[in-house]
């Protein structure tokens, strides 16, 4: 079963074709990695899936409904690349506010804070936190409504290796509960941690497969090499 189905998606921003006729399905209950160099259209695809991107052509179906359908607003969690939380409020105040909008009570807020390991920072103002901590506040906000689909735009940027490992464990734990995760990254070593991969380049689908399938088909050792091989093959 596909959690997200994208057909013939075209997005034009400021005269530039960001996504050029993309067709792909994202399976439910897995962690899908969205990879590609900066500027390849990852964020635009994610914005389209959560329904905040104006599109030029194509259809996007999310959990059986058209992307942007009001009924999806409680079922899809979105973490943007910028922290997108209130810098002048504390961690807890931010999450309490976002929680009230999605019907999450104080216990859920505390659980989300624990999930992203920010218990010691809960009463600190967000502007005084490090970039990685701010990103985790943003992630916690995306988790609050217990969404079926989590769209996470570079959630592990700037985190220390231990935290990164913990977050990837969390992503797989959530997938094991039946949730679908779409996680973007431009770091190839994170690709190994995904169940399945979507590689984008210049707004087009370069490849879609599991990490091991990709390595095998291109006869390469690591995913950086795989990416190069794919680009060369695509000519």
């Amino acid at each position: 079963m596909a959690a997200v189905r994208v057909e013939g998606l075209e997005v034009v921003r400021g005269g530039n074709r960001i996504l050029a006729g993309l067709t792909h399905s994202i399976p439910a209950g897995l962690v899908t990695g969205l990879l590609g160099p900066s500027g390849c259209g990852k964020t635009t695809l994610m914005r389209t899936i959560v329904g905040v991107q104006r599109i030029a052509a194509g259809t996007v179906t999310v959990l059986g409904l058209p992307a942007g359908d009001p009924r999806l607003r409680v079922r899809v969690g979105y973490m943007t690349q910028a922290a997108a939380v209130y810098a002048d409020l504390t961690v807890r105040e931010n999450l309490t506010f976002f929680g009230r909008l999605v019907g999450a009570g104080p216990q859920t807020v505390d659980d989300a804070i624990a999930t992203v390991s920010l218990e010691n920072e809960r009463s600190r103002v967000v502007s005084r936190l490090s970039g990685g901590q701010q990103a985790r506040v943003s992630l916690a906000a995306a988790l609050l409504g217990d969404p079926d689909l989590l769209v996470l735009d570079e959630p592990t940027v700037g985190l220390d290796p231990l935290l990164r490992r913990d977050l990837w464990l969390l992503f797989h734990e959530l997938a094991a509960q039946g949730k679908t995760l779409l996680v973007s990254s431009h770091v190839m070593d994170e690709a190994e941690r995904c169940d399945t991969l979507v590689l984008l380049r210049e707004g087009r689908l370069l490849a879609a497969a599991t990490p091991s399938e990709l390595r095998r088909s291109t006869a390469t050792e690591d995913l950086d090499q795989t990416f190069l091989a794919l680009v060369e093959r695509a000519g």
Partner: protein
Amino acid sequence: MSLQATFAVAERVLLQLRRDPRTLALVVGVPCLLETLLKELFEAQPRLFQHVGAPLLGLFPFVTMFLVTSITMLRERVSGTLERLMTLPLGKLDLLAGYGIAFAVLAAVQAAAVSALAFGALGLDTAGPRWVVGALAVGNAVLGSALGLFFSAFARTEFQAVQFMPAVVFPQILLCGLFVARGAMATWLRWLSDALPLTYAYDALAHTAAGTLDARFAADVGVVGGAAILALALGAATLRRRTA
């Protein structure tokens, strides 16, 4: 409309304001200072102070809230929080109403402080009831908030947003009848004045000062209310769930 969401937004905005004591001090302190300055300026003409004191008291919140709202909303757009809110189950009206309530509360605090000073130590007097001046001040604050919200959509940076203040607010203050009686204006200026909402806000305050709460006063209040609703509707139109 969801009351839960509206109050969540209002409480969040008030919490942010409370985190910024310097802004709060300026919002309350500056109009107090200006009102005092006005009193001293017209020391030799106490009737002039009586004439403009109450209208100015009622117009301060309009200016303050225009600025505060446009900057707050701009920050909301730039930081990405607006985009996050647009992916959540929050109606645009809930968001706008939440903002409106928060800034009306701030305006009430501002008006209460300036009123206490003006009607107390400065000896300002109005023929009409003083609470009406306060109520009009809060109404004007909502109008200022609504206009600030709308114009913030046209600013990309805080510099630009601040420049909308002289562009949108100053002409309205110059033409509202406070500096030159509207009857003494050139016809085209008078027409322009007719089209600006602050003209009616000033007129309502002037009627309160003079104690003539007649049909004209009621019409003024109606126009200010209508303009606020229109500006809020225009502001709502600038909030897009889908952007380019």
